Each structure stands twice: as C-alpha cells, then as structure tokens.
C-alpha cells in the first residue's frame, strides 16, 4: 500500500473492513504523529475492528487443521480446532497449547507447557480506557526449531503479519517471544529471555539468559547479548553487549572492574 489511508479510501471507494485493516495494518507511517493522536486513532480503530472480528466469527473461516501423520502430539496438549498446521516428525509436548493461525513446520520440538500463538500485547492507552490491539496475524515455526518448556510465542498483530522462528533456532525455557518478531536461522535464545514486539534477530545471534530486548530493534547477525542485559538500542552484527542498559561488553567490563576495585565511575572512565 503506497497510498495513504485517506486517499485510498476516497479514490478506490472500497470501504470493506478487511481492506481498511490491511491498510491500517501498516501503521508505522503514523509514528510521526503525536503519541496521543496516534493512540486515539489506533485505539478506536482496534476497538471497532475488534467488535467486527468478534461478531463475524473469523474462526469459522479458518482452514482445517493439517496435522502430519508422523507428528507426535501429547494427549494433554491442546491444539486449536482450526487453523493449525503441524509438519512431519514434529513433537508437541504435554500441556503445550497451540492456538489458531499457527504453522509448525517439520522436525520442530515444542516443549511442555509452551503456548504458541497467543495474542500480542499491543495496547493503545486512552484516557480512562485501555484498548487491546488486534492479533490477526500468525506464527510460523520453521524446520528444526526447538521451543522450550513454558515458552510463549505471540502471533503477529496485523492481518498477514507473522512471528517467525527461523530454521534450527533454539528458544529456551520460559522465553517470551513477542508479536511480529523474526528470529533468524540458528539463533539461540537462552532460558528466561524476553523479546518484545517487532524485534528482528539476525542469523546465529545469541541472546543470553534473562536478557531483555526492547521492541522494534534489530539484533545483527552473530551478535551476542550477555545474560541479564537490557537492550534498548540496535545491535550491530557481530558485536557483544552486556549490562542494563546494554553497552559494548568491553566498556561494561571496564566499568565493572572500576566498581569492583572501589573507584568511582568517573575515575574509572578517565583511566
């Protein structure tokens, strides 16, 4: 959609709600507005579309489940009634939950208690009202990925958007993978890490235990984020970060050493 919201509605004369959903879905263009106006607009949009989605029962239109004969699903695992694909030789552990609009490719392992395809946490805060954003997208877990126990993978927010776990990714126990996240091939997310919405993690990147990645960031290929870091800025490919907020690991260790020696931060910085 190259045209703006107002133009395409007037010129096409197409008021179908799904079309508006598609256009509004690409909402990053509105980021330049003031936050209040943006929240107001997106909030009421989500509200109305939410009511529409609820009453039109989109579940009825979802495709039937396609579950491979060679997939192993635990008897206590819950698979949604429609809109789930489970590929060959995939394994879904006990008490795992796979909700609508989830695609699990071949040789995937979903750990016990993992929740795949939960709603994203995109909320619009208005005075006296908080409106949850929509979760119309889906989740794709590519070949050979492993999802740990009690991990949560949210689905994409706008229509057609996906949260994708790349090939041979390892997602640890208790990890939260937010809405619209893209995890590159062979990246490793250690247990307890939290990846907020719209993050792109490069190939073979490493996110340490209990690390937190703020939303809409890019983590470069083969970058390493140390355990317990809080990343708030983009991470260049191949770099190593640590700290809360995360800075270059060498700088952080310099700071840390000066603290360990009992010097003040300023003196440690000068030397």
């Amino acid at each position: 959609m190259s045209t703006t919201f107002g133009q395409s509605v007037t010129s096409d004369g197409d008021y179908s709600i799904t079309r508006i959903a598609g256009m509004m879905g690409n909402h990053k263009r509105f980021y330049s507005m003031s936050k209040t106006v943006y929240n107001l607009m997106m909030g009421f949009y989500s509200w109305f579309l939410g009511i529409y989605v609820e009453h039109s029962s989109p579940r009825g239109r979802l495709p039937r489940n396609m579950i491979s004969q060679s997939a192993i699903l635990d008897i206590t695992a819950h698979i949604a009634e429609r809109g789930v694909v489970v590929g060959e030789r995939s394994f879904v552990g006990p008490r795992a939950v796979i909700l609508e609009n989830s695609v699990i490719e071949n040789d995937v392992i979903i750990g016990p208690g993992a929740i795949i395809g939960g709603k994203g946490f995109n909320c619009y805060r208005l005075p006296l009202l908080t409106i949850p954003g929509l979760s119309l997208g889906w989740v794709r877990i590519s070949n050979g990925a492993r999802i740990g126990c009690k991990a949560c993978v949210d689905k994409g927010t706008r229509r057609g958007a996906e949260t994708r776990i790349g090939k041979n990714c390892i997602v640890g126990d208790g990890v939260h993978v937010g809405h619209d996240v893209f995890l590159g091939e062979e990246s490793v997310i250690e247990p307890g890490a939290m990846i907020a919405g719209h993050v792109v993690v490069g190939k073979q990147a490493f996110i340490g235990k209990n690390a937190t990645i703020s939303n809409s960031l890019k983590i470069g290929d083969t970058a390493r984020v140390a355990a317990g870091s809080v990343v708030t800025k983009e991470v260049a490919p191949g770099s190593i970060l640590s700290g809360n907020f995360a800075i270059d690991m060498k700088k952080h260790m310099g700071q840390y050493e000066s603290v360990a020696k009992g010097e003040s931060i300023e003196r440690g910085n000068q030397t």
Partner: protein
Amino acid sequence: VNQLREEIRLSTVALAGTELLREGSFGSLGYLSDKRAQKLVFIETEDMANKITQDDTVSCAIVGSALADRMPPAIGVLVSSNPSATFFEVHNKLAAESHFYGDPFKSLIDPTANIHKSASIAENSVRIGRHCRIEANAVVGEGSVLEEAVSIGPGSVIGCGSRVCLRKDRIAHELTSTGGVLLRVHSEIRANCCVSRAVLGGDTILGEYTMLDNLVSVGESAKVGRRCLLAANCAIGSHTHVGDDVWIGPSAVLMENITVGHKAFVTIGSVVVGDVAEGQKVTGNFAVDHQKFVDFIKRIR
C-alpha cells in the same frame, strides 16, 4: 470470600511456650505495613516497636520479652521467644482449626462464562462472573473471584498457594494461604502468568481493565490499580501497591512492600526497590529517575 467474621481473643491463641501479658482481641493478622484494622502483628526489632506506637490499627502484638514493656497500654501483648515463628504458627492454627478466614463454599460459575474443557477450576471457593473466558490448561485455584468479562490466557495459574517460607533457626515455617485473588471487571491475563493467593487473609487484586502480558508473576497480597499494563516477564513482589494507569515494562521487577504511584512508568528491565512517586519514570537496576539514568548511560556508552 474470606470476610473476617469474628474477633478472636488473644488468650485463645496463646500457644505453649508463650506468655500472655495483656488480654486483647484482634480481627485480622497482618504485617505492620498492611493497612488493616484491628490486626495482630509481630514485633521483633526496635524499629518495629517504634512504629507500633504511631499505628492505631494494631490491636494485638506478639513480642520478644525485651520489647514487651514498650508496647502501648491499649494493645494486647503476647510474649514469645521467637515472635515471627509464633505469629505464623497462630496463623496456621487459625487456618486449620477455626472459621476465622471464612468457610469454603461450592464454586459458583456463571453459565455465560466460557471455560475451556482442559482448564482446571477448584471445586471450592471460586466465583466466576458473567462472560469470563478461561483458556486451555489455565488453573483457577481456591479463593479466586473473577468479576465480569475477565479473561485468563492459556497456562496461567490464578490463586496458586504461595508458599511463603520463613527461615528461622534453620527451620522453614510454611504458611497456609488463606486469602484470595480478586480480578476486577475486564482485567485480562495472558499466557503462563502466575497470580498468587494472599496468605494472611485479604486479596491479591488486579483492577479494572488491567492487562498482564505473558509470564507475569504477581506476588501475594499485591494490589494493582485500574488500567495498568504489565508487560511480559515482569514480577510484582508481595504486598506491593501499584496505582492506576501504571506501565510496568518488560522484565521489570517490583520488590516487596513498595508503593508505585498513579501514572508511574517503570521502564524495561528496571529493578524497583523503593517507592515510586505519582507520574515518575524510573529506570535501571536499581531503579533511579529515568533522566538521570539516561544521562549516566550516555556518559559511559
């Protein structure tokens, strides 16, 4: 649920090894920081003894023999060599043997509630209101009250008995959870969250339109206000009060027993150990004012 119905005389709970110095009666058990009327507390340190003189909500106290003479004359006093252990013993005894914390009742589930077949709802003392939605593998434990249109995501556990253990003299004293969880109208909980039951009576409360993302844990007796957003992986300590319209960022931690004001903003990865003022934005481990923290980070980055 768990309405405190009766007042208990201090002499009826005087256990072996304790000495009743002055008779009194109490309607609830609590810590000194709890805002409860007519409560029984335990006093172990000088600091606590100083606080009790200004506190008019305390009606009885369990104290060590050294501090017994410093108690105000109006309150009942029970002297024990190990006040906190006695306090918790009294609690466990009341929970097991009396109706002090209310009687269990058969769970009331509104027919319009949408409960998944794999969800587990306790048989006793649960109240589920109209249009609630409970998804797959969720667990709703005893003492939980869900008001209207509450939504609980897959795998979440509401009203888990929080095992508060007190380590004293190398013995872990385990407490029985007797309180409940109160989820107000339209509160929403996503996947794999844990909300603990209050231990010493009362409720863990989530306010109207409050939303919890995945993997959030809320400690016992924590009170979260209206329209709060608690992002993924964050943790609220027990007895913490959170005001209205608060944002708690991803992976943030609020320690026990603190107060976060209305419209406060706790950013990503913060570890909050002290009170946060109304409208304040805090960052860092440990959390300080956001602007100060950002200036510091810019200097070392």
